[in-house]
């Protein structure tokens, strides 16, 4: 039964997928391409779509594969959008529920022991590591796919400019004539960057 196998695959992804996002990608690929639910090409398409739509790639792939896999594996039984919708919902829940429960349980455990010196010490040790992990995420994304996908020098410099401008706009407050200062919302900065991309590369 394809639905049970999909749920099992996404439960495993939810339980063993550490590191988030692209770190989970090879696990997702093995779990859905190897059984023949979707082709390698469709998987690459899903990754490309995930990069162009908001939201975590784990959710995007669960929703998409849950939708298409039942119809592809047993077209005589499960073709039609309602069967697809069922698959989407089941896969998305399966990938989320294990870590949802784990986070909830751990948070409650920590809250119960929050006065313990050991817990405080562990978090004090974790904080500098988390700073380093955020930095590593930024460094890993400074790659050619994000800055110079077409290998054209002027595009590289333009993209470095967009990155620098976005940083300045998000991090520093802009002084207004009236003496007030405003900090732009990161969502607004993303929209502005999208518009800049459209104007620079769209014509």
């Amino acid at each position: 039964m394809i639905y049970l196998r999909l749920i099992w695959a996404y439960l495993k992804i939810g339980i063993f997928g550490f590191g988030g996002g692209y770190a989970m990608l090879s696990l997702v690929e093995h779990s859905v391409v190897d059984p023949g639910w979707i082709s390698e090409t469709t998987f690459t398409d899903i990754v490309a779509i995930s990069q162009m739509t908001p939201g975590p790639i784990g959710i995007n792939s669960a929703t998409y594969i849950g939708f298409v896999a039942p119809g592809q594996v047993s077209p005589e039984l499960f073709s039609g959008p309602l069967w697809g919708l069922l698959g989407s919902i089941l896969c998305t829940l399966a990938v989320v529920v294990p870590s949802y429960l784990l986070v909830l349980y751990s948070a409650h455990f920590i809250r119960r022991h929050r006065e313990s010196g050991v817990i405080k010490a562990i978090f004090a040790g974790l904080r500098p590591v988390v700073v380093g992990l955020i930095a590593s995420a930024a460094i890993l994304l400074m790659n050619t796919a994000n800055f110079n996908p077409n290998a054209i020098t002027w595009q590289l410099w333009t993209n470095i400019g967009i990155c620098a401008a976005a940083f300045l706009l998000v991090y520093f407050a802009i002084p207004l004539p009236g003496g007030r200062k405003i900090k732009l919302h990161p969502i607004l900065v993303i929209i502005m960057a999208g518009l800049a991309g459209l104007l620079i590369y769209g014509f």
Partner: protein
Amino acid sequence: MESTLTQNNSAPLRQLFLSFFKIGAFTFGGGWAMISIIEREIVDKHHWIEREEFLDLLALAQSLPGILAVNIAVAVGDKLRGGKGSLMAALGTILPSFLIILAIAIFLTPEVIKGNRVVSAIFMGIRPAVVALIIAPVISSAKAAKLTLKTLWIPMLVALMVSINIGFISSPILYILLGGLGGWLYFKWSASRLHRKGGDR
């Protein structure tokens, strides 16, 4: 420090859902890119959580398996409004991408989006900006973690080791474990030193 991971009841559930729906709808490039937007919504705008506590929730979310963005939402939602809050935050984060992907799966083929010049141009601009959205919280979280010259090597080493991306020694989990262990050992060590000095410090 005192309030680490305690509960806070000032966030209305509806507002929590809406904030995370916004966060989910504008998170391109995975969980780390959410941090700037969550910080702005949760810490700066609504003042629901202190920046330092947010860092602790991030540590928790990163230590556990699963989708980072969802883990962060669950940890923040639970911190603010318990179980119901975690449900609202998780739903808010998941729904935008679920609905968008569903719409694409039903109405479009992947080729329509991939080959679309306008969409690719927009994303050529968004991708470098997403990197900037991750650089900004590096600095704000470094401040919140109260790093000193004596502890600055830790994030620098972690960033270097993880970003060279070679197998086991680049696994984030390894550094989470080492960080927790380091904090615990330091605690033991300073407690025993305190004990030996007869508690005069």
